[in-house]
């Protein structure tokens, strides 16, 4: 199985994919008549050049860590949860209902309740596709896509009928009570005397996301259930033979996945907007797929990938602000990252594997002195020795 060392799998392959995506992105920027280096400079300045920029980068990263974890947990059970978008939308509903239910006296009380609300609603939205997959064999990818669209329609309906305060024009809920206001990073760092920009919405949810990463790591690699999930993911027949119930695993994994996606709403709905608006997720559910792929479905990788995508979104927003490049550039970059780290993974992996295989053979002294042509990609059959 070991075609290449672990470091190559974890670092080299994603890095090469990322470079390929970056090169193509640069070509796209050139194609629309702009300077890629200048664009990169604007992005770095805008996203990382100040605590203001960092604040937004971390805010977006928080969203992507949640949705990335959601996709990753499902990936470990060999399931593709493409419904993070809908689950996070419903999570927003859960958070909003909790926040509006009581005149919360303090965020320390409101936050745990909102966590339960967001996770519960997100999990509930994943539960139906999970049940249909487990019991009726309906393909989870298709059902979760359908549930995304059902969720959008449901939220628009609810916002216009019932959730919107009487007499308000804009379709959103009322503003949450003062006591549901989460401390921002500015507030928290001020306590220990570190100055941080007041404007960005990054808040305590960032630490909740990091805690979720730790929780997922514990679950997957330190509990019997996590072992069952990963075993089931590697081989369903083997898992069944070992007495693992597919129904149980599918249900549990999808509930966790949906719950994690729902938790994203703590950051956006409770932390930033402080009311539920339409389209509060803004593609974060889909970007979670890229984050999970990039991070190799490992919590640590997801944190790094989440930061990268947070940087892209914030940098892209600044880029659009200072130049004539629209923010859609970031969507293209995200697409290229998904393409190279996900769909074209083998294109990057096979040549690298071949290089390592050849080197090992050479070291073992079994290889003939065949002329090495660096850079060419051998056919897949030689890589699969």
């Amino acid at each position, binding site marked *: 199985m070991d075609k290449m060392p672990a470091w190559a799998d974890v670092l080299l392959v994603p890095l090469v994919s990322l470079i390929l995506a970056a090169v193509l992105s640069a070509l*796209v920027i050139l*194609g*629309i*008549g702009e300077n890629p280096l200048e664009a990169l400079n604007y992005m770095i300045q805008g996203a990382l050049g100040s605590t203001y920029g960092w604040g937004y980068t971390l805010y977006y990263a928080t969203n992507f860590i949640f949705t990335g974890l959601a996709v990753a947990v499902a990936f470990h059970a060999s399931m*593709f949860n*493409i419904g993070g978008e809908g689950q996070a939308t419903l999570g927003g509903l859960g958070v909003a209902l909790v926040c509006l239910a009581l005149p919360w006296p303090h965020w320390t009380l409101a936050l745990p309740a909102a966590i339960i609300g967001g996770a519960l609603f997100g999990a509930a939205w994943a539960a*139906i596709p999970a049940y*249909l997959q487990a019991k*009726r*064999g*309906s*393909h989870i*990818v*298709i*059902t979760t*896509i*359908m*549930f995304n*669209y*059902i969720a959008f*329609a*449901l939220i*628009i*309906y609810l916002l216009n*009928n019932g959730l919107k305060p009487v007499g308000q024009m804009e379709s959103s809920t009322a503003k949450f009570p003062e006591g549901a206001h989460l401390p921002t990073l500015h507030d928290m760092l001020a306590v220990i005397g570190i100055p941080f920009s007041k404007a960005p919405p990054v808040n305590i949810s960032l630490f909740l996301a990091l805690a979720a990463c730790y929780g997922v790591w514990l679950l997957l690699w330190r509990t019997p259930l996590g072992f069952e999930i990963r075993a089931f993911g590697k081989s369903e027949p083997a898992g069944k033979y070992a007495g693992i119930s597919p129904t149980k695993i599918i249900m549990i994994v999808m509930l966790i996945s949906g719950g994690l996606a729902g938790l994203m709403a703590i950051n956006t709905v409770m932390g930033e907007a402080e009311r539920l608006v339409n389209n509060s997720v803004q593609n974060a559910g*889909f970007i979670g*797929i890229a984050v999970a*792929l990039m991070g190799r479905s490992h919590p640590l990788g997801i944190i790094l990938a989440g930061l990268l995508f947070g940087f892209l979104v914030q940098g892209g927003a600044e880029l659009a602000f200072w130049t*004539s*490049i*629209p923010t*859609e*550039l*970031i*969507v*293209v*970059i*995200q*697409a*290229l990252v*998904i*393409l190279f780290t*996900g*769909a*074209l*993974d*083998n*294109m990057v992996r*096979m040549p690298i594997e071949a290089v390592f295989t050849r080197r090992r053979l050479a070291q073992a002294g079994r290889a003939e002195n065949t002329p090495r042509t660096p850079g060419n990609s051998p056919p897949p*059959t030689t890589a699969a020795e």
Partner: protein
Amino acid sequence: MDFATFLQILDSTIRLATPLLLACLAGLYSERAGIFDIGLEGKMLAAAFLSAAIAFVTGSVWLGLLAGIGASLFLSAIHGIASITFRGNQLISGVAINFLASGLTVLIAQSWFAQGGRTPALTDGGRFSPIEFPFAEAILPVPVIGPVYEGLISGHTAIVYLALLMVPLSWYVLFRTRFGLRLRAVGENPAAVDTAGVNVIRLRFTAVAICGVLCGIAGAYLATALQAGFVKEMTAGRGYIALAALIFAKWRPWYALYACLLFGFLQAIALRFQNIDIGAFTVPVEFMDALPYILTVVILAGFVGKAIPPRAGGEPYVKER
């Protein structure tokens, strides 16, 4: 509701069902050959943009159509290389294609036309014009038949009739030709097809290319027939509705027509009436929007007949094990 209103709704049903039908048949070829395609949306969007852009620049809708098909084929090629050549995950490839189209269309539109990510409005030569059937005016006074012939059967653009013709054609190709038999076999059991000496890779690429052409026509129809020009995200989930229709139709051409007409009808009603009063309660327009998806989930759940996808769908073919 009077007869004229009813006819108008049926008329817009046909117009709204056409892009769904083309995209649905596109998905049919691809998925029957074992290549899942959730990138229908992105391909339509790319085609919509490039067809509108080229039709505007050249003033010829036909050149626009060709350009649209080209854009869609380009994305199909990416999907084919990722999922057939490099045996990547077909779903992830589809997600990437949807992202790519959504970003690139606006980026290029802004760079070319600087109108906020849209193309300028198309004028006469840049759009498909309706085809009037003979005697449409003459028999209009005849009750029922006249208005049906004039308003419903005649007066659509060429692509509408093309899409309708594609249904029997697809049925014939898939179920009555050797190519179709092989295409379906490659989606069920590629190893058997390979053993018979047929090139699995080439067959799957052909299917993906057919899918690209049909998605291209669907996208061009959106921008140059249904509307006059490209606007950001103009497909508005139609690729996913087409996917839903494909499952609803259980991967069969004639059922695809019925499913697309049904979903087109739902769209037409949602467009025409905002909320529908049925005696005691009101059906909100959001429910009409969500209905195609709800119906598909019900079908997928197997409560109303079972939708069984092609057996080798989504799995890359590895020649040697």
